[in-house]
């Protein structure tokens, strides 16, 4: 199997390049009985034979830089090549902006490669120029809304250079496109945690926000998890208006398993704080668990039966 560039006739092997004939290539020494061998292409062997030679000489030159480019094209996951490239860039005092252009192209083709994103962060750390990072990650995210690397890089930039403004708007747009985008929900929590914090006012606002989104898609786990998340310190029953909303959804006959699970945890909290009539509440718990196990969430039926047993053991008076 060969890549298109293998067939590119203008491509010249390093061993045939006159500017390299002073260098003795270094073949890979894989020992007498190598394991998990790779059937390298001729081109791959040629490039890495010269890359090993360059590393052994520790040569930091224009031609070495070009060679790392060829090596990266063939194996962008080789972290040593990237590291060596950074050493060369530093030694030659290269223009980071040019490197950034080269890198952006590679990331477009290799969006889920750890090394390319690490290289990007290293470059931004050197140059302290983050001016393109938010647009760049937004572009990647628009192609793949859940790209973990892009979100991670974006969070790093936002935190490192305090670029919090505008992020909530960015998230709003993403959630308007896809209310189930869990990465965007996570980003919302991240932004609030680091800016206003979850004050009473903010929690109330976020409850309203989640309720609106749940009304658009009642079985959206992301919105329900977010609701639990913003209430984790205060308790699920903290907001009267949310309690009313939960009961009114139930009253309307909404059968979302997430709603039932949320209500179940509200009962759990009441029981733990001894804020309710145990027998009456346990009756409700039983019917919720039954509904989940037998009707709305059957793949987890054993889990819901287990939850019922656990709560019975914990709260029911013998």
């Amino acid at each position, binding site marked *: *199997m*060969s890549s298109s560039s293998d067939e590119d006739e203008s491509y010249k092997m390093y061993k045939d390049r006159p500017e390299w004939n002073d260098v003795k290539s*270094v073949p*890979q*020494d*894989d*020992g*007498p*009985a190598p*394991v*998990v*061998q*790779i*059937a*390298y*292409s001729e081109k*791959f062997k040629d490039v*890495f034979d010269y890359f*090993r030679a360059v*590393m*052994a000489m*520790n040569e930091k030159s224009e031609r070495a830089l070009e060679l790392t480019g060829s090596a990266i094209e*063939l*194996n962008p*996951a*080789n*972290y*040593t090549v990237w*590291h060596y490239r950074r050493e060369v860039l530093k030694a030659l005092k290269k223009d980071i902006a040019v490197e950034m252009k080269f890198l952006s192209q590679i990331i477009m083709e290799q969006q889920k490669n750890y*090394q390319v*994103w*690490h290289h990007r962060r*290293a470059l931004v750390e050197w140059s302290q120029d983050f001016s393109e990072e938010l647009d760049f990650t937004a572009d990647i995210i628009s192609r793949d809304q*859940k790209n*973990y690397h892009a*979100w*991670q890089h974006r*969070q790093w930039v936002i*935190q490192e250079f305090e670029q919090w403004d505008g992020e909530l708007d960015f998230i709003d747009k993403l959630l308007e496109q896809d209310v*189930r*985008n*869990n*990465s965007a929900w*996570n980003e919302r929590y991240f932004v609030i*945690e*680091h800016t206003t914090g979850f004050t009473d006012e903010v929690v109330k606002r976020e409850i309203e926000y989640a309720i609106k989104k749940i009304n658009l898609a009642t079985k959206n*786990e*992301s919105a329900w*998890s*977010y609701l*639990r*998340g913003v209430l*984790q310190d205060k308790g699920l029953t903290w907001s009267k208006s949310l309690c009313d909303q939960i009961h009114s959804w139930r009253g309307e006959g909404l059968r979302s398993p997430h709603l039932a*699970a949320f209500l179940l945890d509200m009962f759990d909290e009441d029981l733990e704080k001894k804020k309710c009539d145990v027998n009456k509440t346990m009756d409700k718990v039983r019917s919720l668990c039954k509904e989940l196990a037998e009707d709305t969430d059957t*793949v*987890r*039926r*054993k*889990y819901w039966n*287990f939850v019922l047993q656990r709560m019975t053991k914990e709260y029911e008076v013998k």
Partner: protein
Amino acid sequence: MDSSTSFERKKHIRFFSRILQILPHRYSILDTSRLTITFFALSGLDVLNALDHLSEKNKQEIIEWIYSLQVIPNEAESNTCKCGFRGSTCNGVTTPQYAKAMESTNEYDSSHIAMTYTGLASLLILSDDLQRVNKKACLEGIRALQLPDGSFKSTYDGSENDMRFIYCACCVSAILNDFSAIDTAQATSFIRKSLCYDGAFGQGPGLESHGGSTFCAFASLKLMKTLNSALSKQQLKWLEYWCVSRQKMGFHGRPHKDDDTCYSFWVGATLKLLGVFELIDFKENEEFVLSTQDNIVGGFAKWPQIHPDALHSYMGVCGLSLMGLHNLQPIDPALNVTQRVRTHMEELHAKWAAAETRKLQTTSMDRSRTKSSTIDRTHTGTVVLAFVIGLGAVVVPWIYKVYFRHAT
């Protein structure tokens, strides 16, 4: 799905055996991590109870190849921070002879934490006694990779740092039975900070919960034995709920993502460690994993109808093993090797401990022979310690025997 799909054991054995030999050119991207692929194939064969498909000669060759990847200290010991295992020789270990391959020759030659972990695990799978592992250097290599926030990078020259590499550091320490190279308090603190609002773990603080990082985080807490101080009862309940919620038919790694074979292990093993694995739907999970099986060449893929790969093939058999299906060997969910390998590892630890005790006893005897005036406080300490250990070695079995007799 076709209900007649059966588990193709023989084809999987062939698949893993083939991987150990040669991969086509399109896998060149795995060049730096061939040791990890070796681990997937060997452990896969082990889970299939098929290691005897490799000849003794072949096993020995693999052991030699793995040892050739060990980065050991140079004469000046200036590279201990880079010790451990490399994933292959691709980055230029240029030695005239294979036997000398263990000597590091260029400043860019360095171990990688995932390779140190999978290299050691592979040696254990092949029943090696780790005698030729430079344990001290391996641990120094690990120590050099921990960052102030408690997380680990993968190589000394720099890389991203996240939950995966904390897990690798814990596995190396567990295998070598020595956690002194890890600041476990800091590592635990990093893991706690990576607990997401939805109850599971991201790759780092602020990041989205993910099945893979959740496994790495939770298994690390188990291996470091810091779980009890790290998570409350309520947090464990939410983690349980998040994990069981990952099952659609098989398992997926994040809410609203498609099921993927590897999460039958990542999430499954986390549930096993939580003690609630039995609560999932086995039948659906099995059906999904088998739907990603390649019925012609063997192995498993991430999704149905695509090509199988080493990682998903290994995770596929592990996911099925967790459910005790198809006569697969039981696995240890924290270390991600078979229980047979874990037992072998623990036997080695017992041997090392016994050797250590003998060494201390000999030292104490030597010292007691020297004049008492030369015994300073430190020596006295050593003697007392050796005495206590020696006494323990004699008394404990005696007490056990007596108790045992009386009890029966």
